[in-house]
């Protein structure tokens, strides 16, 4: 299947990339379905929960191709864990999608030699670290951004930092060790050289090559970033609401009906823009095909 690769650098054919994609998607998807349904154990502030089986896409990222493993896993999560269960969260999924894909991709790129346990350990913690860190930064950012005079409120920055920091460390230590480090250290050396023949390919040697361009179209990236920004901004607004409300009654009393009409105006604009977007997309596509 990959005769050319004997002379060239270790590279996958499009079909093999599709295999990795499907493999990562279905396995991580299934694991995600299972973890969604496992109840969690809470002892005080310490949460013992099965966050995710992050080791699954990580294995494929390390053994084959970081990009396809990462994308497959994200799709798998959305499809199996959300869509098929009727739990698709709409815009909120995007944030997770980007954080997770980035984490797996970067961790996978780090490993040069799948037989090197130190590299594996680093990759395992990097993967969960990036994912959790991005999540934590976004969470802290929301509160920081959302609450005016954040630093002026006594004890608030500390408490937020403490809560978020604790959650992060907890995830790193518990999930990072149980669901990233140990399974990766156990499984990668076992699978290396063993799973490849089943897929009809050679084990990788050296750093995997990955080209973003052949899968992710620039349009998709831009669209994702824009939507991500909208989702993020929207969440900031929500958070900011917490403190605005204290003086909102005065604000409304002061401005009279104006505030409501401003909100309604914003809402209407969003409504119309999203409609126009959909309709124009449709007609644009038609035109595109006629050519």
């Amino acid at each position, binding site marked *: *299947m*990959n*005769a*050319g690769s*004997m002379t060239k650098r270790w590279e996958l054919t499009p*079909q093999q990339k599709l295999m990795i994609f499907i493999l990562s998607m279905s396995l991580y998807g299934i694991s995600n379905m299972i973890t969604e349904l496992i109840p969690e154990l809470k002892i005080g502030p310490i949460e013992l929960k099965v966050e995710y089986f992050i080791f699954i896409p990580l294995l494929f990222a390390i053994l084959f191709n970081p990009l396809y493993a990462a994308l497959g896993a994200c799709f798998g999560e959305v499809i199996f864990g959300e869509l098929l269960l009727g739990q698709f969260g709409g815009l909120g999924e995007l944030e997770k999608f980007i954080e997770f894909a980035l984490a797996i991709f970067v961790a996978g790129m780090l490993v040069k030699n799948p037989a090197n346990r130190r590299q594996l350990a680093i990759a395992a913690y990097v993967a969960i670290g990036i994912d959790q860190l991005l999540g934590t930064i976004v969470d802290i950012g929301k509160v920081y951004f959302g609450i005016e005079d954040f630093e002026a409120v006594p004890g608030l920055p500390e408490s937020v930092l403490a809560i978020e920091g604790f959650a992060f460390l907890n995830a790193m230590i518990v999930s990072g060790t149980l669901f990233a480090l140990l399974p990766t250290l156990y499984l990668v050396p*076992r699978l290396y050289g*063993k799973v490849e*023949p*089943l897929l009809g390919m*050679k084990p990788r040697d050296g750093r995997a090559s990955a080209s973003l361009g052949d899968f992710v179209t620039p349009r998709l990236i831009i669209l994702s970033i824009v939507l991500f920004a909208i989702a993020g901004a929207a969440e900031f607004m929500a958070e900011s609401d917490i403190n605005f409300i204290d003086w909102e009654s005065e604000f409304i009393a002061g401005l009279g009906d104006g505030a409501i009409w401003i909100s309604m105006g914003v809402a209407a604009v969003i409504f119309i823009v999203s409609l126009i977007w959909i309709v124009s997309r449709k007609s644009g596509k038609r035109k595109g095909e006629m050519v």
Partner: protein
Amino acid sequence: MALQSTEEQPIIQLDNVTFRYPGAEANSLEGVSLSIYRGDFIAIAGSNGSGKSTLCKCFNGLIPTYYSGDMEGTVFVDGIATAERSVAELSRNVAYVFQDFENQLVRPTVYDEACFAPLNFGYEDYKERGMNALRMLEIEHLRNEWIWQLSGGQKHMAALAAALALDPDVIVVDEPVAQLDPAHARVIYEKLKLLNERYGKTIVVIEHHTEFIADYCRKMVLMERGGRVRWVKSVAEGLSAVSELNEMNIQPPQVTQAFHALCREQAIEGALYPITIEEAALHWGSAAKRELPSTDAYASAASSSRSAGEPLVRFEGVISGYQGIDRKKKPILQGIDLSIHEGDRIALIGNNGAGKSTLLRLISGLRRPWEGKVTVCGRDTRKSTPEELSDLVAFLFQNPEEMFIADNIRQDVEYFLRARQQQGIEPFIEDVLRRFKLTELQQRDGRLLSGGQQRRTTLAIGMAMRPTIMLLDEPTASLDIASRKELTLLFDQLRDEVKAVVVATHDMQLVADWANRVIVMNEGRILLDTDSRTVFQHPDILDRAALVAPQIVQLCGRLGIEPACLSVEQFIAYMERAQREELVYGIG
């Protein structure tokens, strides 16, 4: 059986084709030249590793486009060299149904699957094409079914429909019988016949079940090791070459074997043997009229064991089943009373969904009865975990790959004893590996082994558990005939160590050769509990359980030989005796 007239130009033509997989040490095909004509129904036979699948993957361009190995020679499809076209383009001429048909189905429903290929090729009328394919196979009623809910036979049909949707000239089917029980396999072949006769499709099957070749194909290609074509003959001629086939590990139809053994001397050189039951019945029609008591080799093996002591397993009024998607309870077993005794070799037979697997799972403790009680060696299964029961019961799954949980075969065999921290197990493990001929393979992963080797491994895993009772779910499914024979021999290894063996199976040959007790199940009830000879005397019950008796048993039924002979050897012995007695009567 005459060859049908064909058009001048072959639809598929191979000119001196040689192919080697990337990284392989030997050629998989060696100088193959072959012509297949429009309207042919052709079987490709050969031992394992003779390049049958490789040959067929040349027809639709998967070789050399997808498997980029070293290829010499040319393959023409409809007069155009495949090297000049893509796999997708060629798919419009040549459809391919993989042996592993389960995994070639990629869509949720049957209709969706049938429409998938035409949609991908950008046909505006893809829905119509999909429906047409379903109509050709007469499976429109399945259109909205979820594929995962279909039976094996229906899945194969769906795969065939998907292949047909592009309206190809040639349909290649890789071992249709391998994954199916005989009754369903026959249904598939009937459809292929329909496609060949009514729609003029050229059919190529990879097949080593010669009884199907005899009944449906017109031409036969014999491949030999190293990827060479030995010959291309008409089926009647080909199957009459009994000794040549035996040499390749291919078993001719039972009637042909019998004829070969009995009439070799009388037959004129080069004459054709009977290859179907009809032909055999015609041949022996006069010879076997006389009623003779047949041999008593098996006579009373079953009844003797049944009285002995406390049963190993006892079912008392057991009702069990599962919960459906609609949360309603669906009983599968409805009031089972059964005792299994020491020395029982039980074949559990019946159609799909009759409750065979559920019964086995109840014994293993994986499933518990809703009502009634299952006792295994005096233990109530409701009060034990499967882990505890595994000290007594070894349960071998239908799919061997679901039993390979360790790094290699050896560790799989050891797993049970290691989990129990037993010391000094090496000599015992070595012995088990040797007995099941796995010593050479012990460091390999089970998934990369052949079907026969996989089964041997699961048997070894079971043996290493030193169980009192062994349960096997469809152990001979998807095995070629040589591996089946080997497996039946290995079953004898179990006899000394294991007190009782229960095998759920569709394989009537196994029933005839091995079992001393046969339990026929239907719709969650036990229809018949008897020995292997008696079971074949109830054609009505076999019919209800969708089972097909071995060819030689059917022949006996046709010839009025009662009780029927269970194997070719018995039949030969019977006929020889009959001839002798005829001689005696003739003189007297």
